[in-house]
């Protein structure tokens, strides 16, 4: 079938502001949006810039604003969008070129929550054991692929770029609730700052946007209650 694709493009060296580029092409319903924009780049206009790597929903490179919602281009089928597709870069981060945004502020916030295992006890001779129940507490938040679909769907983040964002809180949750970890208080201290966890206004865009189906708002609320009652 014939589809119409509108892509918001911007080359900081040539354009004053972003503009819409229109492409009409043949596609199958079973094509993914990534296939469509790959086709545009390879066959129509090689100057189109976007990130992609694994193309199977794991690397988290190709988060885009597709038909008004943040998603991974490699996880959306044309048949679920219809014949009109609108693709924009994710919001709240500076556009470097076309669909590529500067992810550094996003990763700065991620690094700020100390997203790694902290335990100063000498390593035991065997593994640090954990029961299945203890593991289940943070199971969902282990699934994050750092695609930024959640953080850049957040109205608070759009207007206040210093907000630490849902992705960072999800990754803090993953370690805060790990029974083997000892860095909880340090992380909560980071999240308790003015641009931290309390900025969340429960708009649920993050939860709706997550391509890994992480219950993001639930995780944020759990960290808040941990801070309130047990920190």
């Amino acid at each position, binding site marked *: 079938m014939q589809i119409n694709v509108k892509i918001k493009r911007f080359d900081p060296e040539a354009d004053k502001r972003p503009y819409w580029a229109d492409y009409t092409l043949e596609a199958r319903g079973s094509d993914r949006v990534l296939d469509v924009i790959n086709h545009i780049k390879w066959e129509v206009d090689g100057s189109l810039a976007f990130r992609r790597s694994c193309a199977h929903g794991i690397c988290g490179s190709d988060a885009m*604003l597709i*038909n*008004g*919602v943040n998603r991974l281009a490699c996880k959306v089928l044309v048949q679920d969008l219809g014949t009109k597709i609108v693709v924009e870069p994710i*919001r709240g981060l500076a556009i470097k070129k076309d669909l590529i945004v500067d992810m550094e502020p996003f990763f700065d916030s991620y690094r700020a929550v100390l997203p790694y295992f902290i335990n100063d006890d000498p390593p035991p001779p065997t593994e640090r054991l954990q029961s299945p129940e203890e593991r289940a507490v943070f199971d969902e938040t282990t699934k994050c692929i750092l695609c930024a679909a959640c953080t850049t*769907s957040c*109205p608070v983040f759009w207007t206040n770029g210093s907000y630490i964002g849902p992705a960072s809180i999800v990754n803090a949750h993953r370690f805060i609730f790990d029974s083997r970890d000892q860095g909880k208080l340090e992380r909560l201290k980071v999240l308790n700052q003015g641009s931290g966890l309390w900025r969340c*206004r*429960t*708009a*649920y*865009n993050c*939860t*709706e946007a997550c391509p890994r189906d992480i*219950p993001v*708002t*639930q995780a944020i*609320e*759990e960290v*808040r*209650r941990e801070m309130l009652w047990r920190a």
Partner: protein
Amino acid sequence: MYRGREGQWAFVLHRISGVAVALFLLLHVIDISLVMFGPEGPFEAFLVFYHNWPFRVGLIAVIAAVVYHGLNGLRIIVMDFTSWGVRYQKPMWYGVLGLTAIIGVPVLWKIVPEILRGA
């Protein structure tokens, strides 16, 4: 416009109704405080002025804003302080909208005829 779902619109309405009620409160404090110049004069003039129909329609909006903001505030408290609230945020929001509409019926019943009569 980002095509967010129930949660986004709950947040947007909560913010708009909150700002609206805060502005109304400011105006209300100013006009009530005019009574210090006596029950007649500017105080009375304001009350008469408020009987113009745009303000009567605005009154309906303010009441709706207060009711929505209050009920959605309860929804937010449930989400913040219970382990299950987040799971029921959508039905709770529809409940908030429904209750706001139900409470709005007697308000409309009282105010709309007054507007139509020009009272």
